[in-house]
């Protein structure tokens, strides 16, 4: 690999440290990095305590950040032998090839050895490491860069020639190099890789077909859904605050102006009435859609704080109010209980609608969004379209979320085309991202 090819734009120890902080999960904005550079310019690298404090106050923006910062700082600056290119050992005198480096190792100038290793590490692009499985590849590359193969060949020749009297010593030196290089790579992985891998995993999960999320990823997916819910919640509450100030209240303004001869010094504003959405969720938990249903339940469970009223129902053929289960229990327990009590049956939308109409119709008013999650496969029974129609007319809207792709709507026992006609909106929600988008749209208020 050519020198300079993988070297990041900004050089020097600080650039590497900023990258390490980012990988540790800190958000480092360009503004803060400029601050950091200026801070270092002001205090210098001389006093380590001051350096640490100065970087900490410019880069860490919360207590959590601070804890991560401290860890990162210790790991980075205590182990990181990264000589400044311009100042440290001149390149041409550095014996990087074969026996030269081996000789160096044997005679042992520890600082020079470390310098050589970290230079080799940098030139093979160790900073771009993303996954821990790249470890062995990187170790191999660095060893090659250090001239290990040539050294091995040389030793082998000497063994063949019977002149390898100091074989044990060679072996010890070799082991020492290998373990040093491994340590360097591990540290890099520690610094740079763990967080990137996590992010990639989350992105993949969010875009994945919900049905294809494997059981071992389920916990991670649930965590992700909760994160999404939190984001939605904060977006929505911000929107609500912004909506608070309304139009000019002419009447009140005039009245207040009376003592000042009609000069309106004090303006009054009408409070805008803030829409507080109510949700009713009907969730099909029959075998075919159980996977998607789980995630909708998690999302609803976590959205409790922005939504004033949430009624959750689950059904296969019979419909049950599961709101209490969601309220009282830990999310995992709740979902497990919902599934145990009503799940895995064969679906009858018609029966479920009839149940709902009979028992819960009064819950529906013009502020209510009714969300139905299911594939609309009614086992060839009566679809009870008139009930759905009644619900729609009484509610603000009925949104149908179908985990199936749109092209299979209407095939086999799917009543989806008919149900779609009687819903305000029908959408595919195959992935968590789509699910989040739909709920976000609904929270955004009147359509």
């Amino acid at each position, binding site marked *: 690999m050519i020198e300079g090819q993988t070297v990041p734009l900004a050089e020097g120890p600080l650039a590497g440290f900023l990258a390490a902080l980012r990988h540790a999960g800190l958000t480092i904005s360009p503004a803060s990095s400029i601050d950091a550079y200026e801070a270092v310019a002001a205090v210098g690298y001389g006093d380590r305590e*001051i350096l640490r404090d100065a970087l900490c106050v410019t880069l860490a923006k919360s207590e959590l950040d601070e804890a991560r910062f401290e860890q990162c700082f210790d790991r980075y600056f205590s182990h990181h032998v990264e000589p400044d290119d311009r100042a440290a050992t001149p390149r041409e005198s550095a014996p990087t090839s074969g026996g030269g480096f081996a000789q160096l190792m044997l005679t042992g100038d520890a600082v020079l050895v470390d310098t050589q290793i970290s230079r080799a590490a940098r030139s093979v692009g160790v900073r771009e490491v993303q996954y821990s499985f790249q470890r062995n590849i990187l170790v191999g590359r660095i060893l090659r860069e250090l001239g290990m193969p040539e050294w091995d060949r040389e030793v082998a020749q000497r063994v063949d020639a019977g002149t390898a009297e100091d074989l044990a010593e060679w072996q010890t030196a070799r082991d020492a190099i290998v373990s040093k290089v491994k340590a360097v790579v591990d540290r890099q992985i520690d610094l740079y890789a763990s967080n990137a891998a996590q992010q990639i995993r989350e992105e993949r999960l969010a875009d994945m077909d919900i049905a294809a999320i494997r059981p071992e990823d389920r916990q991670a997916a649930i965590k992700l859904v909760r994160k999404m819910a939190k984001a939605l919640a904060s977006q929505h509450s911000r929107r609500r*605050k912004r909506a608070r100030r309304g139009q000019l209240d002419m009447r009140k303004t005039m009245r207040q102006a009376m003592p000042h001869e009609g000069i309106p010094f004090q303006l009054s504003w009408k409070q805008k009435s803030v829409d507080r959405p109510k949700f009713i969720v009907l969730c099909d938990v029959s075998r075919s859609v159980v996977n998607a249903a789980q995630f909708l339940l998690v999302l609803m469970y976590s959205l409790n704080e922005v939504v004033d009223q949430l009624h959750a129902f689950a059904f296969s053929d019979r419909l049950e109010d599961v709101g209490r289960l969601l309220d009282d229990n830990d999310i995992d327990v709740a979902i497990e209980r919902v599934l145990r009590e009503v799940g895995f049956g064969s679906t009858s939308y018609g029966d479920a609608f009839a149940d709902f109409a009979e028992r819960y119709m009064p819950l529906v008013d013009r502020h209510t969004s009714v969300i139905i999650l299911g594939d609309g496969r009614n086992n060839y029974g009566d679809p009870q379209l008139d009930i759905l129609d009644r619900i729609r007319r009484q509610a603000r809207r009925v949104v149908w979320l179908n985990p199936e792709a749109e092209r299979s709507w209407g095939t086999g026992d799917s009543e989806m085309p008919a149900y779609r006609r009687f819903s305000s909106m029908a959408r595919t929600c195959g992935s968590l991202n789509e699910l989040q988008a739909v709920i976000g749209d609904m929270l955004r208020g009147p359509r």
Partner: protein
Amino acid sequence: MADLEASDAPVDALVSGLEGFGYVASRRIATALYLSLRLKKPILVEGAAGVGKTELALSTSQLLGLPLIRMQCYEGLDESRVLYEWKYAKQLLYTQLLKERVGDLLEDAPSMDDAMARLRGVGDMFFSEDFLQPRPLLQSLMSEDGCVLLIDEVDKTDEAFEALLLETLSAYQVSLPEIGVIKASTPPIVFLTSNNIRELGDALKRRCIHLSIPLPSAELESRIVEKRLPDIASQLRGELVAFVQELRHMKLRKPPSISETVEWAQSLLILHVEELGVDVVRDTLNVLLKFESDVEAVEAQAGDLVRRAKATR
């Protein structure tokens, strides 16, 4: 400021400088302060109540010999309270005056247009600096020789207010629609404090040096008490600091912070206490703890805690 720049160890200079005004600062606090002065950036100070956030601003203003403008935040705080208002009463008075004079003023106006133009000239006067009532934020920008601006408990305001601060704190200027842009000739040194009631926006944090002041170590706390109450016997000081440090390990609703320690030390001094005893502790716990449930919890273990405090010393 000038001698700070000249100093070889500006951080240490700040530490001793602040100490001269009774504020015992850790190196991190001093470093943050130094950078905030150097980079001309506001400093956001976070930490539990009573760890000395506000004190830091007060001592800094004394150290730099600059006036302090304090702005206490609360929910619902809005532009008119922090930036400016018009002096309504004065405007009203002038309106009356104008009314009486309007005849004279327009007497020799040749045409209607001319009369209108004259009135417009008078109208503009109402929204000039003469009728402007500056509030803390604007005051701090208008102070000629600079000042220390303390925006206390900024987390109590709502997000809209933060946005207002962003504009003001990044350019040290503010635009008033009627008058134009007012820019600080000497930017104020700004402290924002927060008790973490609400998570502040990223945009605000990004513009600030971020300092969080933790509860102090025993050594630092002991120095602070000594600084504040030089008369206190060193034995008592050590014991009471050790005791407070112990309390912070207990699960309390409101663990005592520095201000409570100092207050307690003061009470003990007034009571002529020379060393910590179970009875004295029981009698004075309410100075240290702010919740009845905390007092009860500590009272139950008072003997044990006092013994341990004496041992660790």
